């Protein structure tokens, strides 16, 4: 028998979670859970928690509640345009009406559509838990530490992800924000690969650059060492450095061939998109 729980607040959900631990399954929109027929003795439906549906800004962060669906976020002007564009390309309207960004993170698929952009923005996952005295506590984990592998996340058995935080500095003031999902068709497609590039050109120099690739490994690929090498480069010298940058990424990109695409294609298109991003960095 499966018991369904419909908590109305995060605290109530955390109480159930603390009790049922790994015997329970958290469901928000359900779009990932349903297709794999996943279940557990206790299923905790979080979509009835109104308190998880919010988008708010602090001085430093944009905070997106775990209950926000893609469709809601696409229409929310507080959300950075690059993330909204990314969500517009996810699946179909029906999925976008129930699926959530936090769900996309917790599903930890190598092909998660929002992940390259969130990695590039240094998103932080907020995991809520309850201590022994019934007091709510929060852990804040950088997304690249939270996602450990395919379907593996750093979430403890008494925790629920309540929000994702995006540093405002990762998009405000950036001069170029670019995202490309490469799928086999224009809707209802799992990414063969995806690319996110964000950068800030200031006084003729690259002040900040973030580059992330999806669907090319077990998790999103982001190479801070190469980014640091690029940072500080005068735009006028980028052309001369381009071959070296592409060669360095070529060395670390190791996609596989599978039923959706080939290793050669994935790698070639990743480098094509990166080169295009670098070529147009001043646009």
């Amino acid at each position, binding site marked *: 028998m499966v018991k369904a729980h419909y908590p109305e607040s995060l605290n109530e959900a955390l109480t159930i979670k603390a009790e049922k631990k790994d015997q329970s399954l958290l469901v928000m929109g359900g779009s990932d859970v349903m297709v794999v027929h996943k279940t557990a003795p206790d299923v905790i439906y979080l979509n009835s928690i109104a308190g998880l549906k919010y988008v708010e800004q602090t001085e430093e962060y944009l905070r997106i509640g775990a209950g926000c669906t893609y469709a809601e976020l696409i229409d929310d002007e507080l959300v950075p345009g690059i993330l909204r564009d990314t969500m517009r390309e996810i699946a179909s309207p029906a999925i976008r009406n129930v699926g959530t960004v936090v769900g996309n993170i917790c599903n930890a698929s190598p092909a998660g559509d929002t992940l390259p952009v969130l990695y590039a923005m240094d998103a932080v996952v907020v995991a809520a838990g309850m201590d022994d005295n019934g007091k709510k506590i929060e852990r804040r984990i950088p997304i690249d530490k939270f996602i450990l592998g395919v379907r593996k996340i750093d979430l403890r058995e008494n925790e629920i992800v309540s929000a994702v935080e995006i540093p405002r500095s990762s998009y405000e003031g950036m001069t170029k924000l670019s995202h*490309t999902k*490469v799928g*086999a*068709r*224009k*809707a*209802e*497609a*799992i990414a063969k690969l995806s690319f996110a590039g964000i950068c800030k050109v200031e006084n003729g120099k690259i002040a900040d650059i973030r580059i992330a690739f999806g669907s090319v490994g077990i998790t999103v690929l982001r190479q801070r060492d190469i980014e640091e090498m690029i940072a500080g480069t005068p735009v006028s010298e980028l052309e001369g450095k381009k071959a070296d940058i592409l060669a360095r990424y070529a060395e670390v990109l190791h996609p596989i061939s599978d*039923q*959706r*695409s*080939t290793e*050669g*294609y994935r*790698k*070639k*298109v990743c480098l*094509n*998109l990166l080169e*295009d991003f670098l070529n147009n960095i001043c646009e």
Partner: protein
Amino acid sequence: MKDISVPVEKKDHRMKMSGRAEYTADMKLPGMLYSSFVRSEVPHALIKDIKLPELPDGYFSVSGSDIPNNHCACITDEQPVFADKEVMFVGEAILLICGPDEKTVKKLCAETEVIYEELPAVVSLDEATEVALGYEYHKGDTETAFNNADKVISETFRTGYQEQAYIETQSAVGVWDKDKGKAILYGSMQCPYYVHSALMHSFELDESHVRVVQEVTGGGFGGKEDFPSLLGCQAVAAARKSGHPVRIILNRREDMSVTTKRHPAILKYDAALDKEGHITGLRADIRMDSGAYPGLTSVVMQRTLLAALGVYKIDNLDVKGRAMTTNLVNNGAYRGFGAPQAFFAIETLMNHIADKLGVSPLSYRQMHFVKQGDETGTGGKFWHHVPIPEMIEKAEEMSDYSRKYAEYARPQSGRYRKGIGMSIFFHGCGFTGSAEKDFIKSKLTLHKYADDRVEILASNTDMGQGLKTTFSKIAAKVLDIPYEQIIIENPDTDRVPNSGPTVASRSLMIDGKLIERAAERLKAIWEPGKEQEIMEQYKEDRECVPWDIEKFHGDAYPTFSWGLNVVELQEDTLTGNTDLLGVWGVYDVGHVIDERIMEGQAQGGILQGIGYGSMEHMEAFKGRIRQNSFTDYMIPTAMDTVNNGIAFIDNLYKDGPFGAKGAGELTLVGAAPAYEAAVEQASGRHFMEIPLTPERILLAE
């Protein structure tokens, strides 16, 4: 009076749109059992032993030994209903376990252990050496043509699988009437009398002891031509053994892994050209993957060979085709039935030759078009008007093809590059060869009830293509009674005569004509308030060159439908992805019986054809179909196309009702080469293989 082509509400519209239509999966018969298959896990092996778990009461295991004649009849009968000694491909049925609880049935299947002794397996067309069947034909003197050629151009094309992707998976409910010794089968199907014959053959019954009933069918596209015969025998075997009705419903992954698909093919062409570039001789050597058992392959192959020279007049020909046996899933019927492979090859070859000669693809084609009165490749004749000139004129008007072609031929720069491609093609109407006359001998009945309603009794099925509506329109129009007064139900072989299978774009043209004739006769004797009946039978009295399959000579079709596609797109040079900018289709289907239905046929057919040419990639990997879900097997969505421009040219055919000819398959046949041509112009490269995926476009396979 309004023209027959003015659209009406489809006969099945309300039932389907309101969700009231009941499919095979909705059937619940008293005592009905669920079932699940134990299938081969290896491509080729001897079955050494089968270790069954202990079956609880009420559960049954069904195998080949439960069937009087364990052979499934479909043209040939090599394929066993259940593999007993040897498995020939991954997914071949070994056992069916049935019982009252679905989960338990699945668990029992999972617990069944089959011990194999593996044998060498042929898991690709390239490595296949065993010829399942073959045909060839010759015309003129090819050797002289090649000896005297100014230039010879040789190219080899490859085409992949295509999955029908009907929305309703294969399903059947078998019943065994013990008292009468009668097999009864309900299911999703295109050809009730094929299933009927297969049941007679496997269970050694006469025709009065088999009853087959078509249920509402959610799409077929050829995929439900032969496979339901196999599934029907399996369901009846289970019903006969258990004494209960038994339901079989394939799940999607199972359906995509084990049911028939479009034959992958390798098509090698050599063209001899004279000084002006005219093709003086053509050699085509075509290999197809038959799969483990040939099934419909012989007929598919015939159509491929008949389409091998396209819409062109070429005097010297050597055309040869061989179907190769592999240890892969059987291939069978899919809308177009062998023609899409050939038209992809010949149309692409024409483009490549034109490009090499530095002339436009259209003007190069214009040097070769067939016209009325010309001989066909097999010594038959194009008896009727060939409307290619009007079709080109219409296509130019709609798509501005020639201007765009010239514009995109200039050097392009930037991330996105444009291209436009055209294809011209035909579809031989009706069954290939002499089958209508010699084997099918279609019969149907119009039954008028005392209340003056008229029922059409025919074995043709409506699988969404609109046949109930078009048949009814023909009867109503001739009888001059309201369309609502015509009754047409799903066929039940206990009630309807054999008017043939619903395949080969034959039903409307062949059986529609019988309805027209029957209605004319009924009208002549019409007495209000009286029950009356007219039976009509197919007869052939037209002028023709008789078809001889041994010599592969003569008229293989009574007439042809003609089509032209134009595809315009832009390619993203970074990703190899394309955006369609324009899609056009101009068709001659004789006369359109219902404009809305025909528009739907055209829109859907073109998109299936573009899918075949672009994204519908399916491969067997170590003998196993790798893309066996809608997540991994990509069919285009509405987002992937644009509003297509469709036009029809009237070209009345006297042996079709109201001048109509075959229409259903034609619309798919030419889209892939038009797509390929557009990509070639955009990318500046020649390609030899479909689906032309972005991986292939970027040479990064």
